[in-house]
């Protein structure tokens, strides 16, 4: 998982409200609220950066957390969101990811 690329699905609606990111899947209308760490991963999910790189450069630098712990949580987070089609995961870079983040 850590060497995979992640991208925000274009089939979502998202808005940052305060410190939280509220994300809604257009596919199944499920609604998620991301905490600060989740929001950092979400905002970096551009399809061109691996999860490992996001965790190392965004999560560990912004939040006081060990890389091993952060990686484990990030993998769980990505698995959950990808199950609802909110995040796309691929072993190759993902092109033309949008994602409606504002």
């Amino acid at each position, binding site marked *: 998982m850590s060497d995979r690329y992640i991208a925000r699905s274009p089939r979502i609606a998202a808005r940052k409200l305060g410190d939280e990111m509220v994300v809604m899947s*257009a596919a*199944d209308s499920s*609604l998620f609220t991301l905490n600060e760490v989740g929001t950092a991963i979400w905002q970096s999910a551009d399809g061109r950066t691996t999860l490992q790189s996001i965790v190392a450069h965004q999560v560990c630098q912004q939040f006081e957390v060990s890389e091993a712990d952060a990686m484990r949580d990030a993998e769980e987070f990505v698995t959950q969101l990808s199950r609802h089609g909110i995040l796309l995961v691929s072993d190759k870079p993902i092109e033309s990811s949008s994602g409606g983040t504002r």
Partner: protein
Amino acid sequence: MPILLRTTDAVFYSLLVQRYQDFLSSFAQPQFEFDVELTDTPEADPDADVCVTRAGSDWQFRRGDFFAQWDPESGRGTVRQSANPYSIDSVLRIVHTLLLAREGGFLLHAASAVRDGEAHIFTGRSGAGKTTLSRLAPPDATLLTDEVSYVRKSESGYTAYGTPFAGELAKAGENISAPIAAVYLLVQGPENRLEPMDEAETVRTLMRNILFFANDEATVQSVFKSACAFAAGVPMYRMIFTRSSEAWGMIGAAKQIEMMA
């Protein structure tokens, strides 16, 4: 938004007139019109799943008891259903959700009432107390609906309109409108108390209670956008209430919180 319903059945016609009596008007040119064709479709089951899909420029609404087709551009559509008021009621709700989604408004699963010239909206899951609060409304409050609130974007904010869509009270709201002062999420509790909700919580609560039947991307995106814009402009509170008429006193308290903020 004037909608013309056309039927050749005299009994069904009088049923419609009776059901929507306070909401009837005589527009020479209605914005939208439906031909209602009566058939022997099964009984209405309001809990059955509605399927709303796009077929080219047309929308199609389907439930066990009705099938409707509608072209929002021409404004024309047809409904096939049996002679019961529940099917047409559902079709009209769906039509309004689609129309409102285009202009930043929505239908909210909520009771609403006007007091002192301002509308207050009470949402919450079934059994949270919408009907109870509607029943306890003081004489100077006018009920817009006990079930489905109609929210439109206006120049200066948002306006709530009365609807004929009734819940347990089985009574249509008054056909009036007023600017929306606040939205309350009803929660039963041991005392009467108001807690301001932040924007993220407001959006989450709205999204759980906005009626939308079409799950296509464009509709979901526009409803979400409308909820975010609404949350940025209208205060929302968690209203913990004891199911007594004193709950209505908290509306004044909400005003004071607003003024202090």
